[in-house]
C-alpha cells in the first residue's frame, strides 16, 4: 500500500516515449506550458522529475513562453541538503499549472537568510518562503521527566520559528510555509516516550500541535510533512545513511511524494485546488450495474465486503461535500434507472439532493463533463472525475486534459484511499463560506427555477429580498478575501493575485480604498461575493486595481451596486475620476465589456486585448436595484488622502 503514495499511483503511468517528448520541448517554438504540464501529470520518479525540471530550466533560460503556467517564486530555506528536492519541486509544480522559480540560498543558512534584510531570499522578494526544516533544525534540549525544562525548550523552539516568521514578514513580506516535524523512530523508553515530558517524541508532538495552530492562525501556511512521513512510515522516512552521506533530510524514494505535497500547497495558495467531484455510478459508488442488476442486485452497504468498499467511497464523497466540495454525477445510464438506488436503496449514504448536477444519459462522458462545468459556471480545471472504467478515464484525459482523473486500483476497497491520496482538494485555509459552498450551488439551481417562474428579471430580483453589505478589508474577512483574490478566474477584471500579507497590508494602507461585499437573500447567506481594491493614482483619481465577483451572483446588478458604493466614497473625499483595466486571460472573457456596461469610456486598447477605461464621476448614472444596502466602515478624507 505504501507504493500508492511513493509512486503517486493515482497518476497515469509515464508514456513510453517520455524521453522523446522531453526532447520535443527543446525543439518546440511556441508556448510549451501545456506540454510541460502534460508530462508532469504522470507518475514521474525522482530521475524523471529531475529530467523534466532540467528541460523546464533550459526552456526558461532560452526565454521560451511557459504559458499557461502561472509564475510563483518560492524561496526554500533548509537545515539540510535540498538539491535533490528542488528539481522535483519545479517539475511537480508544473503538474498543478505553476511555473515555479526556486530561490535556494546556501546550505543551512536559515536564520541568516531570514534575519538579514538584504539576504538572497529577502532580496528576491519571493511570493512565499518554505521553511524546509526537519527536527534537527530545532534548538531542542532533552530533559527527560522535567516538565519545567521541557516547557522552556518548547518555548525556545517556538520562539525560534516565530523569529523566522517575523523576520521574513518585516524584510520581504512573503507568505511563510512551515513544515511539521517528523519524529525519528529512535526512542529511550519505548511507549513511555510519548507520555514523558522532555523526550524527543514528546517535544516534537507538542511543537507540531502548537505550530499547526499558530501558523494557520497568523494567516501563514502549514505543510504537514510529519503527516506524510507517518503515512508512509517513519522507519523508512528517516534514513540515517542518506543523512550521514549528504545531509539529505529523508529517504530519496519519498522525494516525489514530498514535492507533490509542496506543489499542492503552492497551487492551493494560488487558488488552483479543485472544487467539484464528479462520480460515476456503476461499480464506482455501488458494486454492479444498476441497469442489469436492479436496486436489489447492486452491492452497497454493510455486511458485504464489496458493498462496504463502495459505501466508503460514498462516505468520503459525503464528507467532502460537507467541507464544501460540490458533487455531481456523470453516468452512462437511463436517467430514471440511475436515480432509482438513491430513492429506493435503504443503505445508500448519498441522496439525490447531495448533487448539484445529475447527468445520466447515453452521451459520451467528455460532453457530459463539459455540460457539468457549464451548468456550475466553473472551469474544467476545477473538476475531478472518479470512474472505475479505464476506457472512460482515458477518453476524458485525452479529450479534456484539464480534468483530473485518478487512476484506480483493481480492488474497490482502495478507491476511497486513492481519491484521498491524490489531494485534489488541498486547501490552505478554511472559512465559513467553504462550509456552505456545496449548498450554494444547489441554491443557484433553485434560483434559476424561480427566475423562470417570475418572468421579468426585475420582479425576480425583488422577490429575492436581497441584502448587500459593504465593508473595507479587515482581519475578519481577510482569509476569504485572499481566497477570492486567488481563486476567481471568470468575473475578474485584472486577475491580480495577492497573498495574505499583501492583503493585510492593504487594511492599513492610507492610499487604498477596499471593499469586501457580502450578499444574502431568501434562500440563504451567500457570504462574501465581491472584492474591490482601488488605489489612489493622483488626488482626484482612483485606479481600480482589482474588481472581482463570484459568478454565483451574476445577473443581480451587484456590479452596479458596487460601483454606486465606490462612487459614494469617491465623492466624499473629492475623487472625481475612476480608471479601470481589463486584462484578458483565457478565463475572463465574461467581463470584457464590464466597464462599458457600467458607463466607462474606453481610453486605450492594446493588441493583447488589454483595455483601459475611465469614468468621470459627475457623468455617472447610478442604477437603482431592489436591494437593502448596508454600508459599514468609514473612509474619511484623512485615511484615503493621507499619502
Amino acid at each position, binding site marked *: 500500500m505504501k507504493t500508492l503514495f511513493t509512486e503517486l499511483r493515482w497518476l497515469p503511468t509515464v508514456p513510453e516515449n517520455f524521453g522523446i517528448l522531453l526532447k520535443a520541448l527543446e525543439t518546440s517554438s511556441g508556448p510549451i506550458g501545456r506540454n510541460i504540464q502534460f508530462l508532469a501529470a504522470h507518475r514521474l520518479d525522482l*530521475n524523471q522529475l529531475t529530467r523534466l525540471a532540467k528541460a523546464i530550466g533550459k526552456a526558461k533560460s532560452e526565454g521560451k513562453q511557459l504559458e499557461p503556467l502561472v509564475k510563483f517564486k518560492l524561496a526554500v530555506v533548509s537545515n539540510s541538503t535540498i538539491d535533490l528536492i528542488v528539481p522535483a519541486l519545479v517539475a511537480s509544480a508544473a503538474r498543478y499549472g505553476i511555473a515555479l522559480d526556486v530561490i535556494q540560498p546556501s546550505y543551512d543558512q536559515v536564520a541568516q537568510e531570514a534575519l538579514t534584510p538584504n539576504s538572497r531570499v529577502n532580496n528576491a522578494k519571493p511570493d512565499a518562503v518554505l521553511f524546509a526544516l526537519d527536527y534537527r533544525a530545532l534548538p531542542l534540549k532533552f530533559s527527560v521527566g522535567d516538565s519545567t525544562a521541557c516547557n522552556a525548550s518548547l518555548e525556545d523552539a517556538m520562539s525560534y520559528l516565530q523569529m523566522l516568521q517575523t523576520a521574513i514578514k518585516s524584510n520581504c513580506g512573503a507568505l511563510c510555509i512551515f513544515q511539521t516535524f517528523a519524529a525519528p523512530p529512535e526512542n529511550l523508553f519505548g511507549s513511555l516516550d510519548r507520555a514523558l515530558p522532555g523526550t524527543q517524541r514528546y517535544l516534537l508532538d507538542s511543537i507540531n500541535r502548537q505550530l499547526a495552530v499558530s501558523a494557520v492562525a497568523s494567516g501563514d501556511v502549514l505543510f504537514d510533512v510529519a503527516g506524510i512521513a507517518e503515512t508512509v512510515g517513519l522507519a523508512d522516512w528517516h534514513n540515517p545513511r542518506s543523512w550521514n552521506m549528504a545531509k*539529505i533530510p529523508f529517504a530519496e524514494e519519498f522525494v516525489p511524494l514530498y514535492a507533490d505535497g509542496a506543489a499542492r500547497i503552492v497551487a492551493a495558495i494560488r487558488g488552483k485546488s479543485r472544487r467539484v467531484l464528479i462520480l460515476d455510478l456503476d461499480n464506482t459508488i455501488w458494486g454492479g450495474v444498476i441497469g442489469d442488476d436492479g436496486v436489489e442486485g447492486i452491492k452497497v452497504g454493510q455486511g458485504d465486503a464489496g458493498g462496504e468498499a463502495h459505501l466508503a467511497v460514498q462516505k468520503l464523497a459525503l464528507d467532502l461535500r460537507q467541507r464544501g466540495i460540490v458533487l455531481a454525477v456523470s453516468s452512462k445510464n437511463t436517467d430514471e434507472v440511475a436515480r432509482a438506488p438513491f430513492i429506493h436503496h435503504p443503505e445508500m449514504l448519498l441522496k439525490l439532493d447531495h448533487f448539484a448536477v445529475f447527468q445520466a444519459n447515453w452521451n459520451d462522458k467528455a460532453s457530459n463533463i463539459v455540460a457539468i462545468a457549464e451548468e456550475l459556471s466553473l472551469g474544467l480545471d476545477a473538476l475531478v472525475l472518479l470512474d472505475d472504467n479505464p476506457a472512460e478515464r482515458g477518453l476524458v484525459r485525452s479529450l479534456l486534459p484539464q480534468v483530473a482523473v485518478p487512476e484506480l486500483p483493481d480492488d474497490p476497497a482502495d478507491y476511497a484511499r486513492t481519491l484521498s491520496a491524490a489531494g485534489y482538494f488541498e486547501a490552505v485555509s478554511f472559512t465559513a463560506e467553504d462550509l456552505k459552498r456545496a449548498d450554494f450551488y444547489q441554491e443557484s439551481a433553485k434560483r434559476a427555477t424561480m427566475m423562470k417562474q417570475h418572468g421579468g428579471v426585475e420582479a425576480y430580483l425583488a422577490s429575492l429580498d436581497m441584502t448587500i453589505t459593504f465593508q473595507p478589508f479587515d482581519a475578519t474577512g481577510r482569509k476569504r478575501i485572499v481566497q477570492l483574490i486567488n481563486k476567481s478566474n471568470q468575473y475578474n477584471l485584472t486577475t491580480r493575485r495577492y497573498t495574505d500579507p499583501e492583503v493585510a497590508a492593504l487594511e492599513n494602507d492610507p492610499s487604498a480604498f477596499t471593499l469586501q461585499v457580502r450578499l444574502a437573500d431568501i434562500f440563504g447567506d451567500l457570504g462574501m461575493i465581491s472584492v474591490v481594491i482601488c488605489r489612489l493614482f493622483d488626488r482626484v483619481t482612483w485606479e481600480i486595481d482589482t474588481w472581482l465577483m463570484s459568478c454565483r451572483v451574476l445577473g443581480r446588478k451587484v456590479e452596479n451596486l458596487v460601483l454606486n458604493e465606490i462612487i459614494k466614497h469617491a465623492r466624499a473625499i473629492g475623487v472625481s475620476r475612476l480608471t479601470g483595466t481589463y486584462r484578458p486571460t483565457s478565463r475572463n472573457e465574461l467581463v470584457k465589456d464590464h466597464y462599458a456596461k457600467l458607463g466607462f469610456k474606453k481610453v486605450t486598447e492594446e493588441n493583447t486585448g488589454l483595455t483601459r477605461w475611465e469614468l468621470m464621476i459627475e457623468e455617472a448614472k447610478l442604477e437603482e436595484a431592489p436591494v437593502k444596502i448596508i454600508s459599514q466602515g468609514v473612509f474619511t478624507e484623512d485615511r484615503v488622502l493621507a499619502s
Partner: protein
Amino acid sequence: MGRAGIYEQLTQVFRDVFGDDSIKVTPEMTAKDVEGWDSLSNIRLIVTIEKTFKVKFTTSEIGKLEKVGDLAALIEERC
C-alpha cells in the same frame, strides 16, 4: 544474472539518471566520463541501482566505489 546482463541494466539506469540516451557504460568508466555525474546525482544513481537490482549497499561500500566496474562487481556479488 550474468555480467553482460548487469551492464545492460546499468546502461539503462545511467540513461535514466543522467538523462542521456547515448550513454553506454563500461567497466573503466568513472565520474569524469559522464556529464552531470557529481556527488548529488551519484546519490540518485545509487538509489536507482538499489531499486533496480533490489540490493542495498552500506555507507562504506558506497564510499569505496571508484568506477563502474566496482559497481558491477558489487551487484554481481549480491544477485
